[in-house]
């Protein structure tokens, strides 16, 4: 039977489809991305990153590797964390197309999407078959840091979570244990709630001070607001009344939390109200504090991982390596503070290539390497990362570390996310600053609530209610 030309073509097409489909199934997302990106060889992509250590990844690893594989050059533009939102909106407002790939802080994603700065990614995800590997991202990051009202705008790329780090040697010391039990009636262990935290911190300060204090955290408002958001919810607080959209942060819970925090400060080194991340880290690494709650790099750096690399040469030596324990903070629902997702700028002139780079970086294969870079600031965020045998054996305790991170990725709490989140956070930061300045807690909270209400009124109660409802309905918005 002579096959008509049409039939031949149809047949060829079918065969082509089938074979490429099976190829797609066999290929990893990273490979697919590289293959597809080769057609853009010779172009340049600009990636927007937080300044400091973060860009070391694209500068030293992912950028050069990508160029080698695809012929696309990666150009990096950096900005300090608190400048990132500004810079992105600035470029968007002027439609400059200066950035192709963006690092987006997830709780700012609604604002950026609303302002038209981000490109929807669902089509690309489907086209390049990325849905499978997306399923491997830790639940909490996948479900909460990638979409705005159902549309995907970013690929969750960083497992930021505020874990508790404590001095195992102190907690496991028999004298400390018996003394503590005698006084408080329960075993000395990482605190399960904030009352225990206060008990333990007080006891350690009493018995070991002033050489060692019970705890020390980063109190600078920019950092502490995340700790507050978590503790407030753990103690039962809600940010808003879902129906009236009035702020309820000045409730009894809010006051209790503020007063409890002030009580905790008694068991921390003097001057702690001024501490930023570095002071907190330094104190813990020096052995001056027994507990702290902070970002994942603390867990790696205090154990000495990566301390021999050039990029981390500015860190002082850790004196507590080997004695660091990892746990979930009191309440068991750590704050997923900050974090990053990879997005594509809506004004980019190379959207497809930009997406492919993002997919490649975020893929199982490449992300596993990226989170293990000694100078990496990207924290594990995929199930495969937590389970990776190589990572788990990188230092004594690395397995506990990864287990704690994984637990956090299940129970963690989301940063508050609304329209113009930054303004609400700004008011919160200011309130915290006032607390350290010893103003009356109730007054501060009432002012904060009224500032939030003013903002809501200005933005539009109905719009905000809708967005808040969307956020609050996520499983990780409030502890269950």
């Amino acid at each position, binding site marked *: 039977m002579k096959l008509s030309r049409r039939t031949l073509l149809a047949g060829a097409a079918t065969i082509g489809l089938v074979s490429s489909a099976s190829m797609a199934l066999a290929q990893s997302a990273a490979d697919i991305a590289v293959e597809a990106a080769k057609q853009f060889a010779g172009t340049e992509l600009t990636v927007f990153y*937080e*300044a*400091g*250590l973060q860009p070391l990844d694209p500068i030293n690893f992912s950028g050069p590797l990508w160029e080698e594989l695809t012929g696309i050059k990666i*150009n*990096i*533009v*950096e*900005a*300090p*964390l*608190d*400048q990132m939102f500004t*810079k992105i909106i*600035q470029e968007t407002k*002027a*439609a*400059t197309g*200066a950035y192709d790939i963006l690092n987006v802080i997830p709780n700012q994603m609604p604002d950026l999407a609303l302002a038209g700065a981000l490109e929807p990614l669902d089509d690309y995800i489907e086209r390049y078959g990325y849905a499978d590997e997306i399923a491997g991202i830790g639940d909490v990051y996948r479900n909460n840091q990638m979409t705005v009202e159902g549309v995907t705008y970013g690929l969750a790329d960083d497992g930021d979570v505020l874990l508790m780090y404590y001095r195992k040697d102190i907690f496991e010391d028999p004298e400390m244990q018996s003394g503590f039990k005698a006084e408080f009636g329960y075993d000395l262990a990482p605190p399960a709630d904030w009352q225990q935290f206060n008990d333990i911190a007080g006891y350690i300060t009493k018995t070991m001070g002033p050489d060692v204090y019970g705890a020390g955290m980063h109190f600078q408002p*920019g*950092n502490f607001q995340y700790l507050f958001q978590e503790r407030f919810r753990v103690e039962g607080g809600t940010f808003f009344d879902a129906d009236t959209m009035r702020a309820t942060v000045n409730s009894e819970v809010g006051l209790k939390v503020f007063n409890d925090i002030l009580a905790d400060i008694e068991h921390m080194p003097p001057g702690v109200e001024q501490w*930023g*991340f*570095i002071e907190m880290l*330094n104190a813990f690494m*020096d052995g001056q504090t027994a507990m702290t709650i902070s*970002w994942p*790099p603390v867990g790696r750096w205090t154990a000495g991982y990566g301390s021999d690399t050039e990029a981390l*040469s*500015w*860190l*002082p*030596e850790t004196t507590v390596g080997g004695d660091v324990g990892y746990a979930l903070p009191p309440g068991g629902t750590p704050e997923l503070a*900050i974090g990053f997702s990879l997005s594509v700028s809506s004004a980019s002139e190379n959207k497809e290539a930009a997406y492919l780079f993002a997919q490649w970086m975020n893929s199982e294969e490449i992300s596993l390497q990226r989170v293990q870079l000694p100078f990496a*600031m990207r924290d594990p965020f995929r199930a495969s990362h937590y389970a990776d045998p190589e990572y788990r054996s990188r230092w004594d305790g690395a397995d506990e570390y990864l287990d704690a991170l994984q637990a956090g990725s299940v129970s963690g709490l989301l940063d508050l996310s609304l329209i113009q989140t930054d303004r609400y956070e700004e008011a919160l930061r200011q309130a915290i600053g006032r607390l350290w300045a010893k103003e009356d807690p109730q007054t501060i909270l009432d002012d904060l609530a009224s500032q939030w209400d003013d903002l809501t009124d200005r933005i539009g109660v109905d719009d905000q209610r809708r967005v808040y409802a969307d956020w609050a309905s996520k499983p990780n918005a409030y502890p269950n």
Partner: protein
Amino acid sequence: MSAAGSKNNTRKRLALGIICAVVFFFPIYWLAAISVKTPDEIFAYPPVWLPKSIDLNNYYVLFRDGDVWTVFNSLVTAGISTVIAMVLGTFAAYSIARYKTGGPNFSMWIISQRMVPTICIAFPVFLLFVSLKLVDTYIGLILLYTAFNLPYVIWMMRGYIQDVPIELEQSAYIDGLGRFQVILKVVFPMVRAGLFATAVFTFIFAWNDFLFALILTRSDVTTYPVQVTGYFGSQSTFWGKIGAMSMLGMLPMFFVVATMQKYIVRGMSMGAVKG
């Protein structure tokens, strides 16, 4: 006053003078010290006053990572804009000083251009630069600093030029010199000290600018003040780099102050009266 009395007086004043110098220099010393401390020394508590050794690693890192380019960027943008502003501004000042071009209100308007707080016009300027494709370019920043410093140059040089006796110029005309030549060969030498003083301060204004550079650069033309603020991170504060970069940024200024000091003082005394 007796000779002995004034000698005592001089000694007292010298002592006070030294105290002043120490007080003003001390923070700069602290910054220099931190730029050569080891990481352990930087984070030591209580703080280390005298570093045990001079560890130049921070400087090395700035050179290796290319951060030191930002000092170069500052030099280029501040330097070239100063030159352009001085040339255009001095000629403009001559026109206003000698010919009263535009009348008194005109010179008032020129001065008022300098009064504008940077933040007020930062975003419109950004939009302007976007449409002219000048964002994150040397030309863009140079243009901006030139335009921003011109009013100051015109204002200062007008005063200096007015101090030059007009007879000098008139006799030069009689001698057959053309107008340009008169300006270049007669007026300029007379106001040389004023030129230096104004140039130095114009350079300083551009050199120290932060807000414009922050808004109008991305990565190609970052200037050194913007770079320094980038070292204050959310999960790291690179005090060592902050110290080293600050010292590098100060070096050209040390040089300027040291060599130009004579001219600055003379220039200011001449022009200050006229303002």
